[in-house]
Each structure stands twice: as structure tokens, then as C-alpha cells.
């Protein structure tokens, strides 16, 4: 049987989706995590609960939301809560099982930078900043990090720690008094990295089909530990790809007509 062709990004999404469980409660942002969760919910995890940072609990979007505040999310949510409630009761309260994160930089212990490249006071590149990421990293029972692998992003020392992973490794995260257990996997376009059970250093445990271990090592800014043996990710199935590609973005309508009806004045 010939395997279907797919894009690296599709492999990332499929690999992420497979890690979600049927009774999962997932905190998601836009982009790949949203695709992964929506794919999972349409395949093996039909009871998965999707929670978006904008305050929508248990949403059931029929289309892929374009922003975390897409009206499709509030329209289909079981509950919509304030930002205060979302961060205090639901995230810090420890009710969310799985969180997704991304970043501009990651280190070997899964600490993430989405704040600034260069010096904080005179930045080379100013990034958007924290948002809810520090809380997702701290309080979701587990997190998955989705990030393209390169020496620019997989770095020895991030310029800033926006969201904590395993801090300095070992048991150092434990002293932070955060309820989440930290990153369980970093899913990249090349493979999967998982924390070593003792040192908590990220170890390459799988490569995606057609990717050599050396490629992943080369794309990492620190001496990457490699599991022996390294697994190979099962490629996306035709079924997974079909569902994934059927996810359509939400549509918006133009306000032009409304501009006219509200503001166009008939000639006096």
C-alpha cells in the first residue's frame, strides 16, 4: 500500500493529535495546536474538551477558528468565562490536563522564550510576549511543545525564559510549587524529543519518516542526546490526512454594507 504524501507540518499536527486522549481536557492556541485538537476530536478522541484562552470552555467549532477569540468558539462553547476566572480557577486551579506551547527559543530542559531576542532593554527582535504561556507551562498537568527544529530556535541559552520547562533539569522544577508536571514531548518537523526521566534533558526519541537522526542533531544548538534505539514516527494515515485537510477556516463577512446603512447620509 502506498503511503500518502504529506507536508512536514501535517506530520507535526498528526503526531500531536495522536497524543491526545478521548477524555482529554486540552488548552489550545491557534495554529498547529488547534489543528491537532480538532483532528483528534474528529478521529480517536471524540470526547476531548477544547478550551481556548479567550475563555471558551468545551467548544465544538465546526470550522477551524482563525483566532482564539473567533465567534465560532463562543457560539459553540458550553461556557464562556472571564479572563480572571480562566486563569485563576481553570488554569491555576489545575483542571486542564493538556496544554500546547510554542516559542521562538527552547533549551534542553524545555524552557521557552517567546518574549525577546537579544537584550530585554534593547531588543534585537521584540516578540509578542507571554500571554497565557507561563500559566499553561506551570499548571496544565502536561504540555506538548510544537516547534520547528533549527539551531536558531533550539539554543544553548535562551535570551529570556517566558515559560518554564524543567528549569535546570533534575528535580529543580519541583521546588517551584507549580502543579503541572512539565513538557512531556517536543514535537518538531523532524521528530520527537522527550525528557529523560531523571535528568529531564530532552532526548530525541523518534524521528519522522525520512528524517535522519543526524539531521535532527544538526538542527539542535546543544549536543542533542539520542535514544537508542530511536523510533520512527508512523506516517500520517490517509484517514488522518483526509480529516486534517477537511478542516476549513472560519469565514468572515464584510462590513461594507453595514458601513453604508449606519453612516452613509442621503444628500440633503
Amino acid at each position, binding site marked *: 500500500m502506498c503511503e500518502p504524501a504529506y507536508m512536514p507540518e501535517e506530520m507535526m499536527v498528526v503526531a500531536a493529535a495522536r497524543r491526545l486522549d478521548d477524555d482529554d481536557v486540552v488548552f489550545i492556541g491557534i495554529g498547529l495546536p488547534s489543528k491537532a485538537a480538532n483532528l483528534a476530536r474528529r478521529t480517536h478522541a471524540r470526547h476531548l474538551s477544547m478550551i481556548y484562552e479567550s475563555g471558551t470552555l468545551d467548544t465544538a467549532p465546526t470550522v477551524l477558528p482563525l483566532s482564539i477569540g473567533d465567534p465560532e468558539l463562543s457560539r459553540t462553547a458550553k461556557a464562556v468565562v472571564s479572563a480572571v476566572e480562566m486563569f485563576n480557577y481553570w488554569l491555576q486551579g489545575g483542571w486542564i490536563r493538556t496544554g500546547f506551547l510554542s516559542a521562538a527559543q527552547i533549551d534542553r530542559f524545555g524552557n521557552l522564550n517567546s518574549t525577546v531576542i537579544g537584550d530585554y532593554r534593547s531588543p534585537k527582535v*521584540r516578540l509578542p510576549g507571554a500571554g*497565557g504561556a507561563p*500559566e499553561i507551562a506551570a499548571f496544565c498537568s502536561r504540555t506538548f511543545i510544537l516547534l520547528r527544529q533549527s539551531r536558531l530556535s533550539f539554543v544553548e541559552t535562551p535570551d529570556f525564559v*517566558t515559560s*518554564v520547562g524543567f528549569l535546570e533539569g533534575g528535580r529543580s522544577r519541583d521546588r517551584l510549587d507549580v502543579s503541572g508536571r512539565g513538557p512531556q514531548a517536543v514535537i518538531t518537523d523532524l521528530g520527537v524529543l522527550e525528557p529523560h526521566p531523571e535528568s529531564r534533558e530532552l532526548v530525541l526519541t523518534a524521528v519522522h519518516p525520512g528524517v535522519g537522526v543526524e539531521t535532527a542533531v544538526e538542527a539542535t544548538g546543544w549536543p542533542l542526546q539520542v535514544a537508542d534505539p530511536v523510533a520512527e514516527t508512523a506516517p500520517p494515515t490517509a484517514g488522518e490526512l483526509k480529516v486534517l485537510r477537511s478542516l476549513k477556516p472560519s469565514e468572515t463577512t464584510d*462590513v461594507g454594507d453595514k458601513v453604508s446603512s449606519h453612516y452613509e447620509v442621503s444628500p440633503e
Partner: protein
Amino acid sequence: MTEFLDLTEAVRKHLNPGNVVAAEGFTHLIPHAAGLEIIRQEIRHLTLVRMTPDIIYDQLIGMGCADKLVFSWGGNPGVGSLYRLREALEQGIPHALELEEHAHAAMANAYAAGAARMPFAIFKGYRGTSYPDVNPHIRFLDCPFTGQKVTAVPALRPDVAIIHAQRADREGNVWLRGIVGVQKEAVLASARSIVTVEEVVDRVDETKGGTVIPRWAVSAVCPVPLGAFPSYAEGYYSRSNAFYLRWAEVSRDYDRFREWMDRFVMGTRDFGHYLLALKEHGYV
């Protein structure tokens, strides 16, 4: 106790140079019309506060209205960078911008503390992050019962909150529905507040859903249809994703940005004329 005002009057009455202003909206009901009116009135030296500064804050910063930004995520959602914010921070264009940077949880709690007239908020944030190194307003204290360490941030108490809502009744009670973010907290934490609304109706209440902010907690109500554009108002109109994309082009270069703002914002007398000009030039 609220009064109905024209948006121009409301901004003139309640916004002063040097004010701390929270024009809030979390991915929904973003008060764009009010923000543009601040630009039109050239009110400067503002401290702008918002969890998610996006296009309207990019415009305020690019037009030089802001001395300081208190925020927790600054980007063009689903698109990328806010170039006016980035150039202010990276190159001091049009002038330097002081930052007080937080995470969402800290901002949300700081608003809630402000609404409750507490001097500070406690939560569990920032552990293991670099934020306490760059923000002296993040401190830690011990639980008086267990000794556990908790994180503290000062309350937010803006001079003026600005939000957009779907409706007000004829007495000025405000009703909003859908994603609500920290809008209620921002209004209650602030000394004054301006609420732009899509329409004025006979009665608002929560019996069929939504949230009401009573008239006696609001300073001014201004009917401004489409006042959240290019953001959206659930039940009224959807988000103009196209405008968010075009903003990336318009704002990337400072001169182009200025030219655009001069034409469409400074060159129009109010939000209605701005929208008509946008329409004429194919932006809506």
C-alpha cells in the same frame, strides 16, 4: 452615574494628557472607534494598559500618544508582529516607549484587585521565568498560614477604562455578550469609564444571557455602530480578518503608516467618516 455623550465629547471630557488608559477587549469587542478618537484629539503622554494590545494600540503608539505600555501580549493576532510597537521598542520610533510587561494571569488579577480596591493581587505566576528580573513590580511573599510562597503584583487602577459593548438601555445600563475578557474588571477598576455601544435598546438584563454593567458604574455611554471594527461584536458583525492582514502592510514602514493615518484618521472627522473613507478605498 452615566450620561449619553457623543464619542468626541466623551473623549474630550474624560481623557487627559498623561492619563493611564485601559482600552480593553480580549479578541472581541475591541474599542477601535474610541482609540481612533484619542489619536484624532492628539492626547499624549498616555500610559496605555491592555492585556492584548493589537492594531489600535499599534496606532496609538505609532502616532506618539503613548509614553508607557503595560501589557501581557502584543501582536497582530493570527498575523504576526505589531510593527509600530516593535519599532518603538527596537528603535525608539517615534519616541522611546517605557514597558511594564506581565503575563496574562498577572494582568487579569491586577485588574480584579483594582476592581476590589485592593492594593495588590496574589497568584502563583512567574515561577522559573525571567519576568521578575525585568519587572520590579513582581514580588513574592509568604502565606501567613502555610509559609508557601505566592506571587504579588500591584493592582491596576487606570484613570480611564474604555470598552465596547453590544447594547445599552436608555438609562445607560450596558450589556455585552460573548467573550468578555477583563472588560468588566477594567471598568470597575478605573476612576472613569467610556463605553461605546452598537445600539441603544429599551431594556437590557441577563435573563437570556450576557453581562450587564449597571449605569451607575459607567461614566459615559456613546452609541457608535461598528465601533469595534476591525474587531467584531458577536451578534452584530464579524471580525475583518482582511483588515488585520492589510494592517501588516500598512504599518510595516513608518512613513507609509503616517501617510495612512493622516489620510484616514486625522483626515476624517469621526469614526463614521473614517469607515466611509475606508470603504471608498476598498478596505472594507
